[in-house]
């Protein structure tokens, strides 16, 4: 049994998202910041990878720059500003709030609200139609209906 598990474990692999360069950090907070930044910044060359996962030369240059800035004690916003100034908003995997990106942030909520509004409208309309049907005959129609039904009974 145990050997079977071991064999299965051999096939199991976790997503590896690391490159080989090694950096020294002053403290763990800096290391964490570096990892967070390289995870959230996109590689301009290989567009579906972040800086942490890319092996392209430009990504390693940018990692070096980010490492330098982190160790210099620059704020995260300063570092992302530095990147955006060179490569544009494109490099941010977590886009900033601006006139052109608000739809990304609030679009889903707007859609949910619209959905709710539509459901509400439909149920209300249904309710109104049902109420109308209950009392849709006027007095004249009612007497006519009664006579017609009586006629049917008589025959």
């Amino acid at each position, binding site marked *: 049994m145990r050997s079977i598990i071991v064999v299965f474990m051999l096939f199991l692999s976790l997503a590896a998202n690391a490159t080989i360069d090694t950096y020294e950090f002053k403290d763990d907070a800096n290391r964490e910041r570096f990892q967070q930044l390289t995870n959230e910044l996109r590689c*301009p*060359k290989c*567009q579906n990878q972040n800086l942490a996962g890319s092996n392209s*030369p*430009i990504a390693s*240059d*940018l990692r070096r*720059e980010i490492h330098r800035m982190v160790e210099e004690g620059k704020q995260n916003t300063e570092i992302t500003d530095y990147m*955006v*100034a*060179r*490569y*544009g908003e*494109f490099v941010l995997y977590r886009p900033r709030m601006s006139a052109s990106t608000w739809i990304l942030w609030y679009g889903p909520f707007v859609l949910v609200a619209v959905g709710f509004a539509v459901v509400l409208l439909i149920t209300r309309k249904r309710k109104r139609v049902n109420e109308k049907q209950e009392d849709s005959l006027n007095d004249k129609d009612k007497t006519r209906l009664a006579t017609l039904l009586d006629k049917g009974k008589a025959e």
Partner: protein
Amino acid sequence: MRRFILFIPLIIFVVMGALFWKGLGLDPTELPSALIDKPVPDFNLPSLVDDNRMLTQNDLKGKPALLNVWATWCPTCKQEHAQLNKIAREEGVTIYGINYKDERGAAKEWLRRYRDPYVVNIFDEQGALGLDLGVYGAPETYVLDANGVIRYKHVGAVDEKVWLKLETILQQISTESQG
């Protein structure tokens, strides 16, 4: 009113279809440069040919020109080199070069062998200027105006078609400055 509601799904479909159709034609690898209409970043780097001569952003001013980022390790740069020679020699356009993360000897040899279209070459061994310019893949070609302001950026090889585009931008710039 009721009729109109029936058409809403069709309208949504048509709008989305048009959007996706347009998206198909776009090239996702083409990034808009963040530096358009901004001056070339400050730098202080040696010339490729003359180690002792230091170049700065002021050396790129004077007239509208092309700024070409190249390297000997870049196959596409070799592909576009003949076109650059043609632009420089036949059209008389000023082309500045940035030799990006390259070896001096190899770069000099390259220019000797394939002819040199550049007025001057900046030797950016560490890629520092490249980083400030937002270079993410050589070759890249920028159009500069007479004040050294970046007006356009092209990523990839310059061929005849791209040159036509660059030429119209250069002409636009020179008519602007005259008028």
